[in-house]
C-alpha cells in the first residue's frame, strides 16, 4: 500500500535565495558574525538573533570532512547506485554542508579529498539540483539562470507499507470472499464486534478464532451523512453520495464507511432496514484488503437494499453512530 502526502512549503527569503542559487548553478551561504554558514540560516544558531540577508558565494569546490559509503541506496536517495553521503566544507564556508558525492567507488573516497559541485540538467530550485563529484571528475557546465525567485518548494511524501493481514483480519477477509460477515463475540462481555479488531477494547481482552461468529447481513442504518466530494489530492469521488453506518442484527458495533449511491440515496434515514446484495462470488475482490478498520465492503457487496420492513426505533440506534 502507498500513502502519499503532497506538501508545498514557502521558502522565505533566505532558503529561497539558497534554492534559487542552486537552480542558477551557484551555491550561496550567509554571513553570521565572522562565519559563513551553508546552508544559509535566518538566525544565528548560537544566539537565535535574526541575521541580515548577507549572502556569500561559496564553492563550487570543497573538502570532505566526513563521509559514509551507501552500498545499498534507498529509493529516496539522490542516486540509485552506490554513492557517498558526505560533510563537505565548501571553499569560502566555515561549516560543512551535507550532500551526496557520486564517486563511482568507495576507493575514490577519503576524508580531506577535494570535490566539486555539478548541477543537474533539470533544476527546480531544490537541494537535489546539485550533487558533488571528485574534483578531478568535474566537468565545466554552462547554466542558464532562471527568471523568477524561488518562493515555494514541493515535496511529495510517498511511503510504501507492506503489512500482512492480522490473523483475525485474514479470517474476516476469507469470510467476505465466501459471502459471510465474520465478527467476534467478546468472551468477557458477550458483545459482538464486527469487523473485529482482534480484541475487545472495552474489556481489554484479546480474542481468538474460538470467538469468531458469523453475523447477519441485514440490519438498520444507525447513522449517515451526505457527502459532496471536495477535489483534494487522491480524491476519487466526483458525485454526492451517502456514507452510512449500519448496525447488523445481533451485533453490538456498527459497520462503518458504507457508501450508498445514485437513486438509493433518496429515503435514507436512521432506522431504515437494509440487506446486503452480494456480488457474485467470482466478482468479489478482497486481495487488496489491509488492516485498517474499514471493511472493503464495496468490493464484495454491490449495494445495501431496503428490505421494506418497518423501521427500527431510531432512538437506541443513536449510540451506534460509529
Amino acid at each position, binding site marked *: *500500500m502507498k*500513502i502519499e502526502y503532497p*506538501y508545498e*512549503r514557502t*521558502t522565505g527569503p533566505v*532558503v529561497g535565495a539558497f*534554492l534559487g542559487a542552486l537552480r542558477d548553478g551557484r551555491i550561496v551561504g550567509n554571513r553570521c558574525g565572522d562565519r559563513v*554558514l*551553508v*546552508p544559509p*540560516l535566518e538566525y544565528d*544558531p548560537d*544566539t*537565535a*538573533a535574526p541575521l541580515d540577508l548577507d549572502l556569500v558565494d561559496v564553492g563550487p569546490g570543497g573538502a570532505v*570532512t*566526513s*563521509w*559514509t*559509503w*551507501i*552500498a*545499498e541506496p*534507498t*529509493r*529516496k*536517495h*539522490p542516486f540509485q547506485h552506490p554513492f557517498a*553521503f*558526505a*560533510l563537505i566544507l565548501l571553499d569560502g564556508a566555515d*561549516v*560543512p554542508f*551535507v*550532500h*551526496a558525492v557520486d564517486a563511482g567507488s*568507495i576507493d575514490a573516497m577519503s*576524508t580531506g579529498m577535494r570535490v566539486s559541485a555539478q548541477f543537474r540538467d533539470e533544476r527546480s530550485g*531544490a*537541494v537535489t539540483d546539485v550533487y558533488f563529484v571528485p574534483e578531478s571528475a568535474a566537468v565545466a557546465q554552462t547554466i542558464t539562470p532562471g527568471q523568477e525567485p524561488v518562493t515555494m*518548494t514541493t*515535496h511529495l*511524501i510517498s*511511503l*510504501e*507499507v*507492506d*503489512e*500482512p493481514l*492480522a*490473523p*483475525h483480519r485474514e479470517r474476516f477477509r476469507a469470510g467476505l470472499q465466501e459471502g459471510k460477515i465474520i465478527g467476534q463475540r467478546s468472551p468477557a462481555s458477550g458483545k459482538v464486534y464486527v469487523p473485529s*479488531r*482482534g*480484541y475487545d*477494547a*472495552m474489556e*481489554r481482552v*484479546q480474542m481468538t478464532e474460538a470467538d469468531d461468529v458469523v453475523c447477519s447481513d441485514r440490519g438498520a442504518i444507525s447513522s449517515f451523512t451526505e457527502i459532496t466530494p471536495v477535489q483534494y489530492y487522491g480524491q476519487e469521488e466526483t458525485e454526492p453520495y451517502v456514507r452510512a453506518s449500519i448496525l447488523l442484527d445481533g451485533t453490538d458495533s456498527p459497520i462503518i464507511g458504507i457508501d450508498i449511491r445514485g437513486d438509493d440515496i433518496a429515503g435514507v434515514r436512521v432506522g431504515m432496514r437494509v440487506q446486503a446484495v452480494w456480488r457474485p462470488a467470482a466478482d468479489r475482490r478482497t486481495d487488496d484488503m489491509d*488492516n485498517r478498520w474499514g471493511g472493503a465492503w464495496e468490493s464484495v457487496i454491490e449495494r445495501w437494499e431496503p428490505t421494506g420492513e418497518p423501521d427500527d426505533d431510531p432512538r437506541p440506534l443513536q449510540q451506534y453512530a460509529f
Partner: protein
Amino acid sequence: MTGQAPSITRVTEPRDVAIVAVSQTDSHRSYLEGEPTLIMQCVNDLLARTGLDRDALEFTIAGSCDYLSGMPFAFVANIDGVGAWPPVYESHVEMDGAWALNEAWFRLQCGDIDTALVIGSGKSSPGRPREVFPLQTDPYTMAPLGLDPVSMAGIQARALVDAGLATEADFAEIVSRSRRNALANPHAQVANDTSVKDLLAEPYFAAPLRRHDLPPISDGAAAVILVAGDRAREIAERPAWIRGLDHRIESHHPGLRDLTTSASTALAAKHAGVANGPIDVAEVMVNYSPEEVVLRNALGIPPGEGGAVVNPSGGPLAGHPVMATGLVRFVEVAQRIFDGSADRGVAHASSGPCLQQNLVCVLEGEA
C-alpha cells in the same frame, strides 16, 4: 522581540515521583496483530503487577508515530489498548515514550493527581524505516536527499575514527558485548555470542558501519506507572525514584554540530545530576554502535573495570521497537532498582539523527 530569553525561577521544590511498575513486550521482527494489542499486553500486565484498577490511573500519555506503520490516526486506535473507558486526562507525544514520561513527570508536578500511565509503542516492520526517518529532517535541505539515520550514523562513525576516538574494532566490541548481554534478556530480538573478529569479517553496509552496527527493525511496546509521593511506597516495595530529568536539543543541521561529542547529552546529564553519586547501571539509547562511544564520554561513564554496567539488556542493538526504545531504557533501569541489583542508575533516550536530542534521567532506590 529583544532576543532575550525570559528568566525562569523554580518557586517550589518538585514533588517526588517514582516509577512503581514496568512492562515491556518482546521485540518482534514482525508482530502480526495491531499496535493496540502490544499496548494492551503491557497495560494489563501493569495492572496485574500492581493490583491497581484501570480507573486508578488518573493520566495516560503515549508516545508513538503514525508514519512508522503508515496508519493515519494509529495513535487514536492505540487508545484501545490503554482502555478508553473510563475517560481520564489523556495526552500523546509524537516522540519516543521516554518523552511521554517526561511530560507525565511535569503533569504530576501540578499536584492535582498522583498517578500516571506512560506508554511507548511502535511497529516499524510494515514500513521502510530508512525512508520514513528522513521526514523528521529539514524539509528544504535534507529530507529531499532522503538523508536517513543510517547514513548520518555512518558519517558520525567516520568522524569518530578520523578523530582517533574509536576504531571499527571498538564498534564491533560494543556490538559483540550488547548481543552477548542480550542472551539474558528474554525480550531481546538479537542475542548471540559473536566474536569481534567474526563481526569485523562482515562486509560494510554504510562504511565504516557494518549491518550489525545498526539496530534491528522491531515491533514492540513498553509502559510504566508513575506515582507521586508516599503512595509510591504503598504500591512498590522499592520504587525507582526520579532524582533528575533533563532534555536538551542541538541544531538539526549536522554541519553546525561536532559529531564526535554530544553537547546536549552532557548538558542534560549535568542538570539531571548524573555525577552526584556512583552509577551502578546505565541503559543508554545506542541505536548505532558508535553512539555508545559518544554517549559514554558525554555521560561521564568511561569503559573499564569498576565502572557502571552499560546496557546489560543489550540495548537497542538487541531490540529497537521505535517509539518504545527510549522508554525501555527506563524499564530496564527501574527493574534493577526494584530487585535491588542496583541502587542508582541512568536512563537515556535520544531522538533525531546523530543523537540530535537527548533526555537523561537519574533513578534511585531507597536504602
